[in-house]
């Protein structure tokens, strides 16, 4: 009747980084034993989850299913009554957290960057408003927290061991959501995960025609062009060039962010770049929190001047 339940994520037979980040967080809380829920055949890799005291094998198909995975987590909560349920603030976590919280009448706090145990509950800090504000909340126990990827040190959770594996009897799924197939990304003309230098544009670019100037700069720097999500959604660049949560994780030698505000979803994809240079007219843009060098000027002025100098 206590402890922390970590909802593990996997894709293509491997635990995702968020799994180890959540385990590291769970262990740092000092809030009792840590249990890890796995799905499909992933319980067979329980030895990778050595930082958990116990692994709950929730069954289900190997392929993620929003309905059956959420129902399985809910059953695990019934069986173990944890004080805290940690779920990734990820594509999968978004489907699971709300139904689990609703089924048990628990408070839910999303976009957490930190969670700490307090008297009778937990103190969470959420990154909201595109990363521009941190919002602290206090929740009573038990509670559900969705944790942003990259908030904790995954290496601390990557401990080999031999946790006990308990099989969970789960009810049959209602079958209203059925997995069809995985769709691999279409190969673009460039693989930005392999680029040494990236020049990335965001919403600040304003119009499709203005991409040309940035492309010119990229060519002079022998860099590849990349972008944040709004540029792809607007149909201005290919998905294969998108950096971030739903795009690609990149770590070039130099990452130059032009007109990118730095929402958590984007930061997740580029924060491991060796050198980050951000140019943004908004001095409060969160991108400056992860950048090594910053310049608060109009990106077109900067681009024009650089192009002129480099030519």
């Amino acid at each position, binding site marked *: 009747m206590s402890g922390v339940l970590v909802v593990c994520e996997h*894709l293509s037979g491997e635990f995702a980084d968020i799994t180890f980040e959540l385990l590291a967080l769970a262990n740092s809380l000092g809030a009792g034993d840590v249990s890890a829920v796995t799905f499909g055949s992933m319980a067979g890799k329980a030895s990778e989850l050595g930082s958990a005291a116990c692994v709950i094998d929730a069954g289900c198909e190997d392929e993620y*299913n*929003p309905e059956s995975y959420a129902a399985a987590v809910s059953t695990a909560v019934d069986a173990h009554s944890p004080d805290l349920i940690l779920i990734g603030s990820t*594509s999968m976590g*978004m*489907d699971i*957290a*709300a*139904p689990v*919280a609703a089924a048990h*009448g628990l408070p*839910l*706090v*999303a976009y957490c960057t930190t969670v700490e145990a307090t008297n009778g509950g937990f*103190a969470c800090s959420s*990154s*909201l*408003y595109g*990363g*521009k*504000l*941190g*919002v*602290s*909340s206090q*929740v009573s126990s038990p509670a559900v927290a969705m944790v942003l990827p990259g908030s904790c040190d995954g290496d601390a959770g990557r401990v080999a061991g031999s946790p006990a594996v308990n099989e969970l009897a789960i009810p049959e799924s209602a*079958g*209203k*959501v*059925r*997995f*069809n197939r*995985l*769709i*691999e*990304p279409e190969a673009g003309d460039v693989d930005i995960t392999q680029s040494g*230098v990236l020049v990335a544009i965001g919403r600040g670019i304003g119009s499709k025609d203005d991409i040309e100037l940035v492309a010119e700069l990229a060519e*002079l*720097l022998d860099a590849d062009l990349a972008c944040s*999500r709004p540029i792809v*959604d607007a*149909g201005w660049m290919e998905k294969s060039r998108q950096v971030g949560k*739903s*795009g*690609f*994780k990149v770590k070039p030698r*130099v990452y130059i962010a032009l007109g990118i*505000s730095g929402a958590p979803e984007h930061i997740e994809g580029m924060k491991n770049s060796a050198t980050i*240079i951000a*140019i943004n007219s*908004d001095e*409060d843009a969160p991108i*400056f929190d992860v950048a090594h*060098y*910053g*310049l608060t000027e109009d990106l077109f*002025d*900067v681009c024009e001047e*650089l192009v002129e*100098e480099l030519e």
Partner: protein
Amino acid sequence: MKIAVLLKMVPDLVEELEVDSTGKALDTEELKFKLNEFDDHALEEALLLGGEEDEVVALALEGEGNEKLLFTALAKGASRAVQLTGVQPGGSGEQATAFAAALAESSFDLILTGVQSVDDREGQLGPLLAARMGLPCVSVVTGVSVTDGGATVNKEYSGGVMAEFEVTLPAVLGIQSAQQPPRYAPVSKVRQMQQTATIESLTVGGAGGGAESEVTAMAPPEVGASAKMLDDAAALLEVLRGEGVA
């Protein structure tokens, strides 16, 4: 087919965000609001799905700017617009409860909303709503096609990988992006709607949102090792040369 789209105004992040004197909430005095961009995609996807026989109903909670928002939805092609009244503005949990009460009275096949918004600290509206209504839900959806009694949806994972699911209707979908960029409604057309069209009003009870958390503080994030700020493009060029890329 009947499609509901839930729309919401959020603070425009281009504007400076200030915390009010309580230290726990945004100072809304100077704040500008705009349609949640993901809701715009949800509306676009609904309009793309809706044929002549279908009905696309835009819903929003009562609030500043929401009438214009609904007129804009009508100008873009929504069949009807409904404003929910009698609800205290609250977190996403309360919003979900209010929308659930409103939608329970109609038989929608599909309920679309933006996958997330910049202020949904209590979780995302789509899955919260689905949980209250007992409907299946898929989040982070980038494409929907309707088949007999169901929908085929693409859900985004990371690294450009997607998964295709079949979903039995009725269902709630959290839309990440529509299959084409959201259409634009000319100001003239929005004005015309304001003069000719009617926004329906629906009173929903002020039911609570269930278990909630309490905000204790709100502040700009603590910055670790922040960026070394450069003076001009010339200084930037120096840095680039130092990195060996210029």
